[in-house]
């Protein structure tokens, strides 16, 4: 038994080794794959029962907190009341959906969401790339890692903290207004101005996450063979031509992948960030899909209606993710979920 068991366990290695053909023991693993195919379900269960057992707590948590709520979306088709409960609430067919789709508030939320996504794609997305190029050009490794450590830091701050920090700098009583007043000018409160709200939330997003975003680009840059630069330099390519012909092509696939991921995530725009500032700037500028669901559902108790709006968002997002992945394949990239 011991022998067969260890052989069977070894066979699990085969898939692993298959990913790395260069392994010296690859040929040995090849023989064992036959054993794996022969192993019956029951044998494999007996062999792997502790592995399966290990996954169960996580699977149980997901079933309860991710899958049961998926079924809970049935309230989107009901005139749900928390006092009656899901089993007894009357079904109303697609009423909630037709109401949502005819609601100006919903379309305002959709418009705001898409405008914010588009705006941040143009003004936020390139920032980490530029920062990464800048850092990559630094000669001193110590300086580079110090600056990296500083710019990563705000990624670990909560949105409450980030918005508070911005209030202390740009708010009516913040540093900016303070120095304006000190020089005899009118103070200004950027935090409550709906006209500049897009700029405000984009700069908050940049402050918090642009630094963190450079990790991926720095990794891609460090993978570039330095001899390519040298060869290009010897051939007479100046700094800019080297960047154009060596550096940027190295970033291409990362950029495409991240753009596609962002596209799949287009309907989610900083929920906590927006809900924290909704009171200050008003719903007209700050209502997005997630805040719309929260206010109509949890706040106003129109559960079925809010669930319908949330379900529309979830389904459209799913379609966007699948579409985005298709797009990745079209671009010749591996996409987000082709393997594992």
């Amino acid at each position, binding site marked *: 038994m011991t022998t067969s068991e260890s052989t069977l*366990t070894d066979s699990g290695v085969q898939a692993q080794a298959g990913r790395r053909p260069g392994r010296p023991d690859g040929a040995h693993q090849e023989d064992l794959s036959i054993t794996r195919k022969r192993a019956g379900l029951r044998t494999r269960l007996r062999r792997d029962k502790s*592995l399966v057992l290990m996954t169960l707590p996580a699977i149980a948590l*997901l079933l309860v*907190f*991710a899958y049961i709520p998926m079924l809970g979306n049935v309230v989107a088709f009901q005139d749900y009341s928390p006092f009656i409960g899901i089993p007894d609430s009357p079904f109303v067919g697609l009423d909630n959906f037709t109401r949502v789709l005819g609601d100006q508030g919903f379309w305002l939320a959709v418009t705001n969401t898409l405008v914010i996504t588009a705006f941040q794609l143009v003004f936020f997305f390139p920032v980490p790339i530029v920062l990464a190029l800048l850092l990559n050009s630094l000669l001193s*490794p110590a300086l580079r890692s110090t600056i990296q450590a500083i710019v990563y830091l705000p990624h670990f701050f909560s949105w*409450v903290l980030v918005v508070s920090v911005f209030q*202390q700098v740009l708010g009516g009583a913040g540093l900016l207004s303070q120095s304006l007043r000190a020089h005899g000018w009118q103070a200004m409160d950027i935090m409550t101005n709906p006209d500049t709200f897009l700029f405000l939330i984009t700069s908050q997003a940049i402050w918090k996450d642009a630094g963190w975003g450079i990790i991926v680009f720095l990794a891609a840059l460090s993978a570039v063979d330095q001899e390519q*630069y040298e060869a290009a330099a010897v051939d007479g390519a100046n700094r800019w031509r080297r960047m154009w012909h060596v550096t940027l092509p190295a970033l291409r696939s990362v950029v495409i992948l991240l753009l596609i991921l962002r596209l799949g995530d287009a309907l989610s725009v900083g929920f906590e960030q927006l809900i924290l500032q909704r009171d200050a700037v008003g719903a007209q500028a700050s209502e997005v899909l997630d805040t719309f669901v929260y206010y109509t559902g949890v706040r106003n108790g129109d559960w079925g209606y809010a669930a319908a709006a949330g379900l529309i968002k*979830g389904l459209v997002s799913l379609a966007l993710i699948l579409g985005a992945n298709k797009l990745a394949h079209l671009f010749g990239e591996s996409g987000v979920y082709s393997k594992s």
Partner: protein
Amino acid sequence: MSTITKPAATVSAALRRNKSSRPAWEEEPHPAAKIGKAAVLIMVVVAVLGPLYSIVLTSLSSQATITSAGGMVIVPGEISLDAYSQILNGGVVTRAVLVSVGVTVVGTLLSMVVSVLCAYGLSRPGSFAHTPLLFTLLLTMFFSAGMIPAFLLVSGLGLINTYWALILPSAISVFNIIILRGFFMGIDRGILDSARIDGASEWRILSQIVLPMSKAVTAVIALFYGVGYWNAFFNAVLYINDSAMNPLQVVLRSYVLQGVMIPGQIAVGQGAAPSLALQMAVLVVAVMPILMVYPLLQKHFTKGVMIGAVKG
């Protein structure tokens, strides 16, 4: 450029190019370009650290200093710890700190145990039910049920106004499990197989071989979970109605963003700290744990994130 060449050993991350002086073929940049680059980098650093500096300084300033500065303090004046002794004196903020610490510690422990077990259980393709189990995990990354059903579930389970509502719904992140799994899959099979031949159980292999080999990545994932719990704000808004149970982030919002008076703040007179200093002290308390663990883990997380990105 007279840069001192450092020994290769000090350059830790493989992500970094091992270059500390300009290669011979690279031309010296224009002085203006150098100045421009330095200016941008200084601006970036000041934009991150400047506000934090002013917030910490204001929290430590006396009323006289704050008044003469007209609000936020930039130039150090009279230093006072009144604000901290007042908020950490057993009031609302102290309780909120304790709630946040408790939720963060218990939550991170739970998350780590569940995630490490799951990641190891899924680290061997071809094992029993490997594909359906992995699929169950990954599917949740594509479709999320939404806020309303999640809220109805938590209230249906009777978790409203319990600390479990702040832990269980967000206890596992599939992304973190995938990072851990990617790392576990990269561990040399030879070592694990020889332990298995020697009769070690999977539990023993995980605790005595795999985990000691994965200290950096588990530390990073624990940091991700811990920061997540510490920073979580909206789940408390949804699930906690009892203000005595509010975590620090919610208290921070009501005091700093919504301008709610901090109890004791109205009692002007001897020993009363200025209200702006109090607000800033709450901010500092909220950011302090992150600043404390950050340097310990900073050198690891680039590696951790990249392992996930490459292998995931």
